[in-house]
C-alpha cells in the first residue's frame, strides 16, 4: 500500500507545483488540484480497504529514520484511514463544487485548498503533539485563506475574528505543550500517555491548557461566535469542509489528547460536549438564516461527539461504532446540506421551498435531516441506540436525558425547516443545478445510505436495510415515475401478499393488528385510486409507515421494535405533511412523536441494563426499583401515539388537515401502534408500583380523562375532520382505559375498540373527506342538507355514528357491553365516573356531525353537488358491510383472542354458547338483537310508509316559521356553535390549558434562545473575551469539582 505520508506529500507537492504555473493556466491548475485530491483519496481508500478487508494492523510511519521519541511519527490505522478518507473526499467534492470559484480566483486558492486538506489529514495522522500544533496552525491559516473564497463580503470580518481566536488558542496550546513536554520529557503522544502520571491527575494545568485549546477548535459553547460567523458567511463548499472535515479532524485530535490525559479527563470532555450540544441546539431554534442554522447544528453535533469521546470508558469496544456513527452521519449530512445551500438563492429558511421543483433534491434533504436526527436506517440511529443502551446500562441517566433533549430540539428545527420546504411558497429564483454542484450532493446521499447499510451490518442487530417491508417501501422511491394507480395496485398487492405469506406466524392478538394493517391498509388504499397523476412522495411515505407498522408487530426484541417505531413515525410524518395546511400540525406531530420515541429509547435502554440484545418478553423479568421507571417511560412514549390527554395537541390538526385518504390511515391504523405498544408493555410488565402508586391506576385515569376531554373538545369543533380527530382521542382513551383495567374483559374491550375504531373512524374520515372534497370546505356549518345529494356518504356516516355511539344493534354496543362487564370485575371505581360521563357526550358530536352536514338546510352553492367519488365511496361501503358483519358476529375476531387472553388473565373470560355471549355478570345475543331490532324497525317503517303513502314531498323552505318565511339557508341552518348551552355550562373544561402549556414551553425555549444568542454580538474582541472567559470558567469549575 502507498504510504500515508504521500497524502501529505501529494498535497504539498501539488500546492508547491501550482506556484510555478502561469496564472493563465487555470484549467491545468484545477486539473492538477483535482488529480492531487483524487490521489489522496485513493491512498485513504486503499488503506480503508486494507484495514477492513485484510484486517491489517495499524502502521507506524516514521520520519527521518528515528523511532518516535526522537522524531515525528505518524500512524495509519482504521480510524485514521476512515477519517482521512472523509477529509479527502469532502475536499475533493468541495473542489468539484468550487470549480467556478477556483477557476476565477486562480492557482493560489487551489493551493490553499490543498493545504487545508493536507493540514487536516496531518492532524489525523500525526502522533506528535508539537506536530499537531503545526498542523493546527496550518489548518488555521488555510481556513482563514479559504474563508475569503466567499462572495459574501462579510466573510472578511468573520475570518479576522477567527484569526483572533486562533491566536489565543495557539498561545494556550503552545504553553500547554511546552509544560507537558517539561513534565514528561517527550512530545510523542503515546509517549506522553505512557510517561505521564501527573498529567492524569486531572488538575494538571499544562494538560488542561492543551486540552482546552484543542477543544476550543471544536467551537464549544459559548466560545464559538467566530465559528457561527464563518458558517454564515463563508462559501458553502468551504463550510462543508469546515463542518465535516475540520470537525472530524479536530475531534480526532481531542481523542488523542484524551488518550494522553486518560480517564480522569473524560468527564471534562463530556461536560463541555453536552453543554455545547444542548445550548447550540437551543440557540438554533430562533435562527432564520439557513447557513447559520446549519452552523449551530454543526457545533451541536460536534459537541455530541465530544461528549461521546468522554464516554469511551463505558463504550468499550463499541466506542468507534458509536462515535463513528454519529460523526459520519453528521459530517455527510452537514456537508450535503451546505452543498445544497449553495444551490439556493435566498438565505432565509423558507427560500428553500425552491427545492420543491426537484424531487431528487428533496430526497437528498430528507436523507440529510434523517441522518442528523438519528433516524433509521442511518448510522446515527444505530449509534444513538448503542449510546443510549450503554449510558443507561451504566446509570448515566442525566447525560442520556440531556442528549435526548438536545436531539429533540435539533429534530424540531430541522423538521420545521423541512415543513417550510414542502409547504411554503416557492421563491421566484429556481434552484441553480449544474452537474458539478449536484454531484457532491448525490455523492453524500449515496454515502449516507451506504453507511446506513454498513452500520446496520456492524450493529449486531438485524440490518434494517435488509428487512423486506422496508425494502418494499423504499422500492417505491424508484417507482416514482409511474402513475399513481399502478403504484397503488402494487402497494395493495404487496401488502396483501405479505399478509398471505406471514399470517400463520402471528398469535391471535398480533393477528388482529396485522389484519388491520395489512388488509385494512389496502382497503383504505382503494380510496387512493381516486388520485390522478403521479402523486410524488405519497407512496414511499405511506409504505414507509406501513413497513414500520408491519415490522412493529413482527418485532421480537427492543431494537427491532424501536426501529420500526421510528420508521412508522417518519413515514406518517411525511404523509401528514402532505395536507394543504398541515405544516404546523405535522411539526408538532413529529416533535411529540420523536419525544415519545426518545422516551421509548430511554425505557428500553434502562430495561436492557447494558445487554446488547433485549427481547421484548424480558420486560417481564424486570424488578424494582427499575421496573416502574421503565414502565413510565415506555407508557409515556406509547401514549404520545395514542394521543393521551396532555400529549394530544398534535392530533386534531394532524388528522384533520391530512389528505382525504391519509386521515383514515393515520387515524384508523396508525393510532393502533401506540395501543400495540401499550399491549406489549402491559402484557409483559403487568402492574407496577411507584412510591405505592399503582401505575395502571394512573393509566386508568389518563384513559378516562382522555375519553372525557377528547369527546368534550369534539363537540365544540366546527371542522368535520377535526371533530373526528378529537373523537379519536376519546376513543383511544377508552382503549387505554380498557387495557389499564388489567383484566380479561378490559383487554377484550380494548381490542374491540381497536377493531371498531379502525372500521368506523376510517369510514367516517373517508365520508367527511369525500364531502369536503365536493364542498370545498371542512367547516360543517357551511354545509347542510346534503343527504339527497350524497346518500351513500350519508349512509356510511349514519352507520358510523350509530356504531361509534355504542347504540345497539351495531358493533359499538359490543364494546360498551364488554366495558361494563370489565369494570364490574375491577376494584377501581372512581375513574369509571368520568368514563360514564364521556359516553353520552359522544352523542353530541356525532349528532352534530351528521346533522350539520347531511340534514338541515341545503346551501345554494351546493345544489349541484354530486355524490363523493366512486373510489372514496367504495371503501366506505366495504366498511359498512364489515361493521354489520362484525356487529352480528363479533366472535369471528374476538373468540380466538378471548381464548388467547386466557393465558394472561385466566379469570373472567367470555362464554360463547351458540350466538349468545355471556360473562360472569351478564349476557347478550347479537344475532337476536339484530333480528329483533330489524323486525320492529322494519314493520313500523312499513306501517308508516303505508299510512303516509300520499304524503306531499315539500322543498326545504316549506317549514313553519311563525307565519313567516326563512330568509336564506345560511340563516336557517342551525349549525354554528351548536352546543352553545353546553359551552356555557361546561366550557371551562375545554379551555386550551394543554395547548397553552406546550406553546408556553416552546415560547419560553424560543425566548430564552433568542435572548442568549445575543451573547454573540459580532465583535471579534468579545469573542476573544468569550474564549478566555470560557477557559477560566471551565478551569475553575473543573478544579473546583
Amino acid at each position: 500500500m502507498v504510504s500515508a505520508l504521500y497524502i501529505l506529500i501529494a498535497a504539498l507537492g501539488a500546492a508547491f507545483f501550482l506556484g510555478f504555473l502561469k496564472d493563465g493556466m487555470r484549467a491545468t491548475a484545477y486539473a492538477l488540484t483535482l488529480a492531487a485530491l483524487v490521489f489522496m483519496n485513493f491512498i485513504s481508500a486503499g488503506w480503508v480497504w486494507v484495514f477492513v478487508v485484510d484486517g491489517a494492523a495499524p502502521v507506524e510511519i516514521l520520519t527521518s529514520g528515528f523511532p518516535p521519541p526522537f522524531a515525528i511519527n505518524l500512524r495509519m490505522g482504521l480510524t485514521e484511514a476512515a477519517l482521512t478518507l472523509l477529509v479527502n473526499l469532502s475536499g475533493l467534492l468541495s473542489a468539484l463544487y468550487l470549480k467556478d470559484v477556483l477557476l476565477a480566483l486562480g492557482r493560489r486558492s487551489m493551493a490553499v485548498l490543498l493545504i487545508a486538506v493536507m493540514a487536516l489529514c496531518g492532524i489525523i495522522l500525526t502522533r506528535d503533539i508539537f506536530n499537531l500544533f503545526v498542523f493546527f496552525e496550518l489548518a488555521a491559516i488555510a481556513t482563514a485563506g479559504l474563508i475569503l473564497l466567499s462572495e459574501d463580503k462579510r466573510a472578511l470580518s468573520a475570518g479576522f475574528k477567527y484569526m483572533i481566536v486562533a491566536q489565543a488558542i495557539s498561545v494556550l496550546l503552545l504553553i500547554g505543550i511546552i509544560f507537558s513536554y517539561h513534565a514528561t520529557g517527550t512530545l510523542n503522544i503515546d509517549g506522553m500517555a505512557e510517561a505521564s502520571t501527573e498529567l492524569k491527575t486531572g488538575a494538571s494545568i499544562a494538560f488542561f491548557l492543551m486540552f482546552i485549546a484543542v477543544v476550543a477548535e471544536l467551537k464549544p459553547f459559548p466560545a464559538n461566535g467566530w465559528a457561527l460567523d464563518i458558517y454564515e458567511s463563508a462559501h458553502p463548499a468551504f463550510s462543508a469542509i469546515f463542518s465535516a472535515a475540520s470537525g472530524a479532524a479536530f475531534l480526532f485530535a481531542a481523542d488523542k489528547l484524551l488518550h494522553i490525559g486518560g480517564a480522569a479527563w473524560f468527564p471534562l470532555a463530556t461536560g463541555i460536549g453536552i453543554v455545547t450540544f444542548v445550548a447550540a441546539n437551543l440557540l438554533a431554534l430562533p435562527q432564520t438564516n439557513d447557513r447559520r442554522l446549519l452552523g449551530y447544528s454543526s457545533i451541536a453535533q460536534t459537541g455530541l461527539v465530544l461528549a461521546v469521546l468522554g464516554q469511551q470508558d463505558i463504550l468499550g469496544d463499541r466506542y468507534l461504532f458509536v462515535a463513528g456513527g454519529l460523526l459520519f452521519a453528521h459530517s455527510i449530512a452537514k456537508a450535503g446540506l451546505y452543498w445544497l445551500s449553495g444551490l439556493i438563492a435566498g438565505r432565509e429558511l423558507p427560500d428553500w421551498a425552491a427545492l420543491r421543483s426537484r424531487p431528487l433534491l428533496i430526497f437528498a434533504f430528507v436523507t440529510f435531516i434523517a441522518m442528523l436526527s438519528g433516524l433509521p436506517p442511518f448510522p446515527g440511529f444505530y449509534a444513538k441506540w448503542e449510546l443510549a443502551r450503554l449510558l443507561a446500562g451504566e446509570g448515566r441517566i442525566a447525560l442520556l436525558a440531556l442528549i435526548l433533549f438536545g436531539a429533540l430540539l435539533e429534530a424540531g428545527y430541522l423538521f420545521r425547516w423541512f415543513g417550510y420546504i414542502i409547504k411554503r411558497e416557492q421563491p421566484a429564483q429556481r434552484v441553480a443545478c449544474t452537474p458539478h454542484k449536484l454531484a457532491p450532493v448525490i455523492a453524500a446521499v449515496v454515502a449516507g445510505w451506504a453507511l446506513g447499510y454498513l452500520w446496520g451490518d456492524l450493529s449486531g442487530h438485524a440490518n434494517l436495510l435488509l428487512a423486506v417491508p422496508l425494502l418494499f417501501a423504499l422500492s417505491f422511491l424508484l417507482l416514482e415515475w409511474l402513475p399513481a394507480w399502478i403504484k397503488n395496485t402494487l402497494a395493495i398487492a404487496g401488502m396483501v401478499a405479505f399478509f398471505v405469506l406471514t399470517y400463520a406466524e402471528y398469535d391471535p392478538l398480533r393477528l388482529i393488528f396485522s389484519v388491520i394493517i395489512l388488509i385494512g391498509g389496502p382497503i383504505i388504499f382503494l380510496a387512493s385510486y381516486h388520485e390522478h397523476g403521479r402523486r410524488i412522495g405519497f407512496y414511499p411515505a405511506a409504505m414507509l409507515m406501513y413497513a414500520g407498522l408491519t415490522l412493529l408487530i413482527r418485532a421480537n426484541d427492543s431494537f427491532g421494535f424501536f426501529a420500526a417505531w421510528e420508521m412508522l413515525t417518519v413515514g406518517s410524518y411525511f404523509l401528514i405533511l402532505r395536507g394543504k395546511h398541515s405544516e404546523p400540525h405535522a411539526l408538532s406531530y413529529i416533535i411529540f412523536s420523536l419525544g415519545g420515541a426518545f422516551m421509548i429509547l430511554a425505557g428500553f435502554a434502562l430495561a436492557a441494563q447494558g445487554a446488547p440484545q433485549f427481547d421484548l418478553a424480558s420486560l417481564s423479568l424486570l424488578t424494582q426499583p427499575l421496573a416502574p421507571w421503565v414502565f413510565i417511560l415506555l407508557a409515556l412514549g406509547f401514549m404520545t401515539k395514542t394521543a393521551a390527554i396532555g400529549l394530544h395537541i398534535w392530533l386534531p390538526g394532524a388528522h384533520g388537515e391530512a389528505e382525504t385518504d391519509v386521515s383514515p390511515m393515520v387515524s384508523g391504523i396508525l393510532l393502533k401502534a401506540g395501543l400495540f405498544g401499550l399491549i406489549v408493555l402491559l402484557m409483559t410488565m403487568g402492574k407496577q408500583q411507584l412510591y405505592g402508586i399503582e401505575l395502571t391506576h394512573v393509566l386508568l385515569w389518563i384513559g378516562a380523562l382522555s375519553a372525557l376531554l377528547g369527546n368534550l373538545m369534539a363537540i365544540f369543533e366546527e371542522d368535520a375532520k377535526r371533530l373526528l380527530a378529537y373523537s379519536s382521542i376519546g376513543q383511544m382513551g377508552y382503549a387505554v382505559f380498557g387495557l389499564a383495567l388489567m383484566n380479561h374483559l378490559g383487554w377484550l374491550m380494548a381490542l374491540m375498540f381497536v377493531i371498531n375504531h379502525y372500521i368506523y373512524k376510517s369510514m367516517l374520515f373517508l365520508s367527511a373527506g369525500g364531502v369536503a372534497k365536493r364542498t370545498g370546505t371542512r367547516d360543517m356549518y357551511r354545509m347542510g342538507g346534503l343527504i339527497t345529494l350524497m346518500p351513500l356518504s350519508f349512509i356510511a356516516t349514519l352507520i358510523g355514528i350509530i356504531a361509534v355511539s355504542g347504540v345497539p344493534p351495531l358493533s359499538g354496543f359490543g364494546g360498551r357491553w364488554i366495558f361494563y362487564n370489565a369494570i364490574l370485575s375491577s376494584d377501581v371505581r372512581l375513574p369509571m365516573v368520568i368514563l360514564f360521563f364521556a359516553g353520552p357526550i359522544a352523542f353530541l358530536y356525532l349528532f352534530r356531525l351528521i346533522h350539520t352536514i347531511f340534514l338541515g338546510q341545503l346551501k345554494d352553492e351546493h345544489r349541484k353537488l354530486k355524490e363523493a367519488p366512486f373510489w372514496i365511496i367504495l371503501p366506505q361501503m366495504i366498511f359498512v358491510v364489515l361493521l354489520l358483519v362484525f356487529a352480528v358476529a363479533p366472535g369471528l375476531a374476538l373468540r380466538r383472542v378471548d381464548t388467547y387472553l386466557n393465558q394472561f388473565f385466566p379469570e373472567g373470560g367470555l362464554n360463547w354458547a351458540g350466538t349468545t355471549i355471556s360473562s360472569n355478570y351478564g349476557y347478550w345475543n347479537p344475532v337476536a338483537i339484530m333480528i329483533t331490532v330489524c323486525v320492529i324497525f322494519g314493520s313500523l317503517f312499513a306501517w308508516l310508509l303505508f299510512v303516509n303513502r300520499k304524503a306531499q314531498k315539500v322543498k326545504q323552505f316549506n317549514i313553519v316559521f311563525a307565519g313567516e318565511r326563512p330568509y336564506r339557508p345560511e340563516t336557517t341552518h342551525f349549525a354554528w356553535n351548536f352546543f352553545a348551552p353546553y359551552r356555557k355550562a361546561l366550557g371551562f373544561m375545554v379551555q386550551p390549558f394543554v395547548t397553552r402549556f406546550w406553546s408556553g414551553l416552546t415560547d419560553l425555549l424560543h425566548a430564552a434562545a433568542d435572548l442568549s444568542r445575543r451573547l454573540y454580538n459580532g465583535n471579534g474582541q468579545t469573542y476573544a473575551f468569550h474564549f478566555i472567559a470560557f477557559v477560566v470558567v471551565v478551569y475553575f469549575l473543573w478544579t473546583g469539582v
Partner: protein
Amino acid sequence: MEFDWMKIPYALLTLFIVVNYGFLLNALIQKIAARVGRRYGIPIWQNYVDLIKNYGLRSSITHGAMFYLGPVFRLSGGVGLLLFVPAIYGSYMFSNLSFAGDLILALYFIFFGTLGMALGAGESGHPYAAIGVSRGLSQVTTSELPLALAVFSVALQYQTLSVTEIVAAQQGGILNWTLFTNPVAVAAAMLSFLGSMMRPPFDVVLAPQEIPIGPPTEYHSSYLALMQTNRAIFPVAKIVIYMNLFFGGASDWPTFFLKVFLIYLWSAFVGVVFPRFRVEQSIRWFLIWAVPLGILSILMV
C-alpha cells in the same frame, strides 16, 4: 339454540297491555297535574282520541327519507326497550325478549330512539328542531349520568347485570328492595329520572312558544301518531327498568300497574311544583346534586 316462537305473541301481548296502560297513565298523570292547578283536566281517553285523529288526518307532508325514519327510530326504541326487559318477574309469558341481552342492552337501547328522533328532526330542516335537539342532547349527557352510576352500583351490589337476577335478589319482603339496601343509588337514580321524563323543571327542550316544541315541530299526522304511541310506551318501559332495579320488580300485573304509576307520579309531583331550568342550569344541577350521590353510591357498595 331453539327459538320458542310463542315468545312473539307473548311479547305482542305485553306490548298491547303496556300501550293501553301507557295511554291511560299519561292521561291520568295529566289529569292529576291539572287538578293541582285546580283544573278538571282532559278526559281519560283523550290520548286515544288524539291518536285516532292524527291517523285520520287526510294530508301529510314529508321532508325526506330521514323524516320518515325519525318516528320509526323513536317508536322502535320504545318498543325495543320494553321488549328487552322482562315485564313481570317470574313469568315466562311476560319475560319478553330478555334473552337477547341484559341491563346494558336496555340502557343503551334508550339512545336508539333519541338518536333516531334527533336525525328525523334534523331532516325537517327546521332550526328550532335542531335547537331542541341540541338542548335535549346536552341535558341528557348529565341527566343520564347519575342513572349510569346507580346502575353500576346496583350491578356491583348484586354482582350481575341480568335484570331477572337483580329482581330475584330483591324478593322476600319490602326491605330487600334496593330502595332500602342501597338508598343512595336509588336517590341518584330518581333524580336522574326527573331529567328523562320531559317534565318541569327539565323540559326546556320542548319550550312550546320559544322553539315551537323543539324537535317534533314539523311532525304531524301519522308521524306524530307514532311518536304519541312511543310517548305511551317509553315512560312505562323506562319505569319498568327502575322498578326492576330499585323497587323489587313486579310479579303480577296489578303490582306492575301500581308501581309504575307511583314512580311516574314522582316526576309529576316534582314537575307541578317547580318552574323550568335553562339547559346550562339543569346540567349544573345534575352535576352538583345528583352526580355526587351516584359517586357516593358506587363508593359505598
